[in-house]
């Protein structure tokens, strides 16, 4: 088996030495966590160079889910490309849609009307909660706690029901259009959201009761996968990973988009940048999202939901980069328009792709069992990494 791996082109920078005699004689061992693995959250291949049980280095091989989304964008009109965007981060599809629509609106100098912004914010924050719940369930499952998965998925169902009533789809929602929203908030939308706001806080307490003070959880996550703030900034890591390392950077506050300035919320930060802090940051983010939703649903104004957008969207020649705070980090869209109905180039800056670079830094010197915990805590979605 070692011989096969030395011919692998990706292993060249892992500095392989002699092939092993028996796998336990020499010190170094190359192990492949293959594309099919219960704990890699998708088709991610991680090649680990181990010394006994300690990790000396990793190499991520991605691309197993590459679908050429950015190339497809060059052959679709701006409206036709909208549904493709959901499929990248399929867990938080509403955020993807928000980022794309706002980017094109920025390019065309259109402002979405206030009511549309409120609906957008409510749905995006609901999606943030749903994404964090999915993250919590799968992360706990990787570390061995089976039960939180079922609890979080049961509670996530309520959000998905709201999405389904709003736009017909649970996961890949295609909720927004360029210039606003297509669908009016349905009859009973505010009641449903208000009911959800009251429904969720005891559930978050339930998750915390199971995990936060559990000594096994703390031992598995504290001081594991530490990354310093400087490393985060150097690698370009954003999102809860960055905030858990102590950097108070949230695009909703720093470069606000879609009327986030009207809401009052806090940005949770951690101190040590380990897995436990990231867990706490995301739990607190769920509560802050609930706070935003509560304020939004109380103040939602009447009015149109769609701005005056021409029937055929032909943005002026130019380029725009617009980023939003997706649940996983900074999701950016760089759109270059050449004046025609189809974009010249769409480049997506996925948060998971950039965060995945941090895996190597976090995992050096840790044990093999921690690699799985760290992949879970980075909260990557392979649809976004590979596009």
């Amino acid at each position, binding site marked *: 088996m070692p011989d096969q791996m030395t011919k692998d082109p990706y292993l060249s920078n892992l500095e392989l030495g002699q092939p092993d005699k028996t796998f336990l004689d020499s010190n170094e061992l190359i192990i492949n966590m293959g594309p099919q693995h219960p*704990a890699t959250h998708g088709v991610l291949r991680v090649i680990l160079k181990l010394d006994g049980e300690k990790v000396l280095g990793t190499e991520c091989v991605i691309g197993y889910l590459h679908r050429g989304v950015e190339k497809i964008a060059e052959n679709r009109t701006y409206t036709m490309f909208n549904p493709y965007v959901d499929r990248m981060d399929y867990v938080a599809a509403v955020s993807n849609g928000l980022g794309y629509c706002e980017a094109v609106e920025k390019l065309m100098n259109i402002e979405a009307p206030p009511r549309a912004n409120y609906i957008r914010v409510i749905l995006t924050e609901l999606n943030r909660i749903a994404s964090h719940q999915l993250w919590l369930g799968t992360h706990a499952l*990787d570390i*061995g706690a*089976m039960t939180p*998965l*079922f*609890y979080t998925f049961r509670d996530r169902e309520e959000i998905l029901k709201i999405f389904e009533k709003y736009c017909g789809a649970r996961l890949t929602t295609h909720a927004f259009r360029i210039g606003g929203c297509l669908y009016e908030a349905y009859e009973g939308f505010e009641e449903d959201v208000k009911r959800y706001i009251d429904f969720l806080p005891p559930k978050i307490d339930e998750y915390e009761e199971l995990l936060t003070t559990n000594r*096994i959880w703390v031992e*598995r996550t504290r001081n594991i996968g530490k990354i310093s703030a400087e490393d985060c900034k150097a690698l370009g890591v954003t999102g809860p990973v960055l905030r858990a390392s102590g950097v108070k950077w949230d695009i909703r506050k720093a470069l606000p988009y879609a009327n986030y300035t009207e809401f009052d919320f806090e940005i949770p930060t951690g101190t040590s940048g380990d897995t436990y802090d990231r867990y706490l940051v995301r739990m607190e983010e769920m509560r802050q999202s609930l706070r935003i939703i509560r304020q939004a649903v109380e103040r939602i104004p009447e009015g149109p939901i769609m701005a005056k957008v021409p029937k055929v969207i032909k943005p002026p020649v130019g380029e725009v980069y617009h980023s939003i705070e997706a649940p996983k980090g900074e999701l950016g869209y760089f759109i270059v328009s050449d004046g025609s109905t189809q974009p010249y180039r769409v480049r997506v800056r996925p948060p998971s792709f950039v965060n995945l670079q941090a895996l190597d830094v976090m995992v050096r010197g840790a044990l093999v069992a921690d690699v*799985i915990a760290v992949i879970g805590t980075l909260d990557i979605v392979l649809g976004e990494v590979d596009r």
Partner: protein
Amino acid sequence: MLDYITSYLGLNQTPGQAGNIFWVTVYILIVFGGVSVAVMAMNWLERKALAHFQIRLGPMRVGPHGLLQPIADAVKLLTKEDIIPDEADKFVFWIAPLIILCASFAVYIVVPFGPTHAITDVNIGILFMLGVSSLSVLGVVMAGWASNSHYPLIGSLRSSAQMISYEVAMGMAVVSAILMTSLNKTGTGTLSMIGIVQAQQEQHIWFLFKFFPLGFIAFVIFAIAMVAETNRAPFDLPEAESELTAGFHTEYSGLRWSLFMLGEYAAMIAVSSIAVTLWLGGWMRPFPNTLTGDTWDLVFSLIPGFLFLGLALIAFIGVTRMPKHPYFKIQTIGLAGFGAVLGLIGLILFIPPVRDRIQDIFWFVAKVGVFMYLYIWYRATFPRYRFDQLMKVGWKVLLPIAIGVVILTAIIGVLA
């Protein structure tokens, strides 16, 4: 011949002690059959209880409320293709599950279900149980090696390292309980299982509460060590699905894998019975000394009957809640039949001769059942320990505390 059979019935000993081979065989068949049924029941209970912890229903289709699911699982495993890895050592591959199975089942010959309800009473009873259950480590090591593949080998080495580490802490906890048996008039303790429960009976206290909190701490140490010994959550890293090394029984399929599972559950029941015997008073009913007298005896002896009647009632409530669809007719009838059988058993347990004989066995099995439920509860709730943390807990936390408990128990026992 008939005299041989009936001569035992007048004696007040276990058949092994009386040397009556016929009754020994009968008891062995009953106990091993009972353990096998218990393993199947435990399989069903685990899936149902785990499912209910996770807000889902578990098996519902095969038989009413999934009661026939273990049978379906057994049939499926029996009919699977028996895959042996190519370069595997066939003899060792074949014998590894047998060693685990034999070691796990052989301990049942000294498990005391009552003062005379055991297959035999060896006077090194507890030593025998610990020793033979430690032979299953050999089976684990051999299973991993015979699979001729890196990951099962690493998994089996980890499993066996974990098992022998926690055996040390288990042994220390057991020693402190044995020390307590010597606090009687003659000053000599005993290693025999029946003797330990009788010592608790004479000293009028469960060893759990003796020299509080020493007995309790020893019990807790044993309870944690026995979970690690049987490779169950939260100490099941070597066989977890989401880890790299997939455990020593990866390459086993079909019947061989079911033998591993059988051995694991049998080992769980065996170490639980050690815990029950040593600390929880074995077959004694609760409060034998504070609530004495014939009326209290009567009340406690009626509990098994009422328990089965209660279970029958639950089954009948389940029957009324079954969907009224023709597809569910057979299941409804099956559940009603099951409820009727439970009710019948409950009524039989009210008959005085049966009632008296069944007392000890019932309380013992009930206490072991509590432990089984605890096992499932742990699995549903706790995340997994990482392997080095697991070994750290075993050597650096449990063992010093256990040694401390032994020393303190000995000191207090001599002084008091």
